């Protein structure tokens, strides 16, 4: 089988899983939908490996294969097929997406076990993975946009999965609206490119881009900026990031899948995929790098203050995606995608650990109420700590190699990029600190009642309630189920976390400077035309970057230990000393309030004005009322005839007939 056949199979399995589960959910008993979905993704993962093996058989310059199933749209001399592009970049993304998704499906089989919407959940989940794979395999802009929009729709469905929770539905709508901003930008960018280049197929566009556009050509920069808007919306970068923390309303495995491992990396993929365009428009690429850097610092500071466990991880995701966007924007493609992979491992692991803790807390997500879970949940503690170490970039873990490779790249390009690199190290310090803030606050300190109960042998069961508002809920369909699952008790959860923990520890060895360079070598054919080959740092510079990063990470972890374990009251004292700063951070730099004042309220005011003045006074009063008024006045004579008296009708009839008779009599004579 050829690589493209494997590519089609990668798409076929999740699509089939979605169809089977959504049509047959009544007939599938117990946990069968979960296992069907999980095996569908596993088969997709195997097909990705097949594509990888087949691709490696080709020589290096023949590793970009396009296959078209049928013509999708054809008007005039424009033609778009349902085509996929199988090249090292898309195969790499397929492997990461399907591999991590498989583990998250496995985790969900147990985690969602008590939920009443079990089959619906897995149908959505499979649909999401299908959309994501369609996005990364797309061979032209049309398919790319379709996959892009499907991903947005699937994330809406999954965030609002507990559809009777009002906060969840609102979060889903918010995510969808912001994603649609990105979709529109992407469509307009595709139009600009079609207008100038005359094709929407990716490879021809990339080939012609260099000849069609001058360097920093106005149209191309505009198109690239629009692509960036699309990428920022999907990847939750400033200023379109506000949907991601709210998206934590979805079930925890959804957060792990969508908001850590796959969907939010779509923006990074897009920038990497469009690199021939961005290299021709360096001004746009610089915007990407600066926004990525600003985002990573912003999200890092917010993660220091937020107390909701899942939201801390969400802000950490925003921050880490900032690193990746910065990396691919400065042509550190290999490093950026390497960080994408390791981040998928350790961030999915952190979310899974958080899910296990939230299960033990019977749905509570507030870190202020957690503590001392170290002895009650040893497995979760160990794996979560491994994830936190990798996130913090602790020496020899996965995040250590990937993050610092990006920063070494920045420093090596010098000038303004070096400033971004230094700021990246500041962000790394924040990252390590808040990662271990979570570990120390959740697992260290005095055990809370739920932890004591778990040590005694059973999982706590509080009153079901919405963790955001504290409102009581029931446990029927549309709400979280009555049972809570912890990793310690369920082997699928344990297995998934174990594999990810192993990957978070050793995943970094795929690319150690001077020793191994698997990822960059493999991705080489896709990025062969990059003009920034010679700006890659030497091995020595990378090793220096690693040492600096490692030292920063250790210092920050030590500081976190000092603040939260050695002197437990320190954090409270700092908060009391700087109430303004704390309020600023806890309120997420007032972004939501700003958008409320800038967009929501003016639109609501305008809507109210429209309803009161335009609709009531103008449309109903003037147009509708005027028309009926004219008819009313015009028909008043006809109405006056309709007296309702039978005798009057009879008289009219008689007069009429008599008149007609007279007329004919006079005319005939």
């Amino acid at each position, binding site marked *: 089988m050829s690589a493209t056949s494997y590519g089609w199979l990668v798409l076929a399995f999740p699509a089939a899983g979605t169809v089977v589960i959504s049509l047959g959910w009544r007939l599938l008993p117990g946990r069968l939908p979960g296992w069907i979905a999980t095996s569908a993704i596993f088969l997709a993962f195997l097909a990705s490996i097949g594509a990888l093996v087949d691709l490696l058989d080709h020589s290096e310059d023949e590793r970009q294969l396009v296959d078209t199933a049928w013509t999708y749209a054809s008007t005039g001399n424009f033609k778009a097929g349902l085509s996929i592009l199988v090249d090292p970049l898309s195969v790499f993304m397929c492997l990461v997406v399907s591999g991590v998704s498989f583990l998250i499906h496995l985790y969900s089989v147990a985690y969602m076990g008590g939920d009443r919407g079990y089959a619906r959940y897995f149908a959505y989940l499979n649909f999401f993975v299908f959309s994501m794979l369609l996005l990364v395999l797309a061979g032209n802009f049309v398919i790319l946009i379709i996959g892009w929009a499907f991903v947005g729709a699937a994330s809406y469905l999954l965030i609002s999965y507990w559809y009777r929770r009002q906060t969840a539905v609102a979060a889903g709508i918010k995510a969808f609206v912001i994603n649609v901003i990105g979709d529109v930008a992407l469509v307009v960018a595709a139009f600009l490119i079609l207008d100038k280049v005359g094709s929407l197929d990716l490879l021809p566009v990339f080939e012609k881009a260099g000849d069609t556009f001058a360097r920093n050509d106005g149209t191309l920069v505009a198109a690239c900026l629009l692509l960036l808007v699309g990428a920022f919306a999907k990847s939750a970068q400033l200023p379109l990031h506000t949907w991601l923390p709210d998206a934590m309303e979805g079930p925890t495995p959804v957060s792990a899948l969508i908001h850590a491992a796959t969907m939010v990396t779509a923006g990074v993929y897009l920038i990497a995929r469009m690199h021939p365009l961005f290299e021709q428009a360096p001004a746009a690429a610089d915007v990407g790098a600066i926004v990525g850097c600003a985002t990573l610092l912003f999200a890092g500071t917010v993660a220091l203050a937020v107390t909701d466990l899942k939201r801390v991880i969400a802000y950490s995701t925003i921050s880490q995606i900032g690193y990746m966007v910065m990396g691919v924007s400065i042509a550190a493609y290999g490093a950026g995608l390497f960080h994408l992979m390791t981040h998928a491992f350790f961030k999915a692991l952190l979310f899974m650990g958080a899910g296990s803790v939230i299960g033990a807390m019977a749905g509570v997500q507030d870190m202020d109420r957690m503590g001392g879970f170290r002895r009650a949940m040893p497995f979760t503690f160990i794996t979560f700590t491994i994830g936190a170490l990798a996130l913090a970039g602790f020496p020899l873990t996965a995040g250590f190699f990937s993050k610092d490779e990006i920063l070494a790249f920045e420093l090596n390009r010098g000038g303004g990029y070096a400033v971004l690199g230094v700021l990246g190290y500041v962000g790394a310090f924040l990252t390590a600190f808040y990662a271990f803030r979570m570990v120390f606050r959740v697992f260290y300190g005095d055990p809370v009642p739920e932890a004591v109960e778990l040590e005694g042998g059973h999982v706590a069961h509080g009153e079901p309630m919405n963790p955001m508002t504290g409102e009581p809920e029931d446990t029927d369909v549309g709400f979280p189920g009555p049972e809570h699952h912890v990793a310690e008790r369920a082997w699928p959860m344990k297995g998934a976390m174990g594999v990810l923990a192993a990957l978070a520890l050793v995943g970094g060895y795929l690319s150690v400077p001077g020793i191994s360079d698997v990822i960059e070598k493999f991705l080489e054919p896709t990025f062969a035309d990059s003009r920034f080959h010679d700006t890659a740092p030497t091995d020595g510079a990378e090793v220096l970057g690693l040492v600096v990063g490692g030292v920063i990470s250790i210092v920050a972890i030590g500081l976190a230990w000092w603040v939260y374990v050695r002197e437990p009251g320190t954090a409270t004292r700092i908060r009391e000393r700087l109430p303004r700063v704390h309020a600023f951070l806890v309120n997420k730099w007032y972004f939501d309030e700003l958008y409320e004042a800038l967009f929501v309220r003016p639109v609501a005011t305008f809507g109210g004005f429209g309803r009161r003045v335009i609709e009531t006074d103008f449309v109903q009063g003037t147009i509708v009322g005027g028309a009926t008024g004219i008819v009313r006045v015009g028909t008043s004579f*006809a*109405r*006056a*005839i*309709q*007296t*309702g*008296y*039978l*005798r009057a009708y*009879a*008289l009219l009839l*008689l007069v009429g007939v008599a008149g007609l008779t007279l007329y004919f009599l006079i005319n005939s004579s």
Partner: protein
Amino acid sequence: MEITWYLILSAFIFAIGAAGVISRRNPLVVLLCLELMLNAGNLALVAFSRMHGGEAGQVFALIVMVIAACEVVIGLGIIVAMYRNRLPIDIDQMSELRG
């Protein structure tokens, strides 16, 4: 045979009937007046038939009588229904058709 006198009589009866339909308020009287108008027509038909010597006019007159009978049945039915529902027996009170 002089037809004029028959036609004058027919016209008189028709006019009396029409005047009754237009001016009276009791539905029973209105029905009677309608009968007068129909029979005035019948008279004219029979008179013309005699003058021309054909049967068609007389056949028409027979059909008019059948229709008149039907009309009386329906009209009386309506009046009985009005009475049963304790509505006033006065056609001016039934003016729901007013626009």
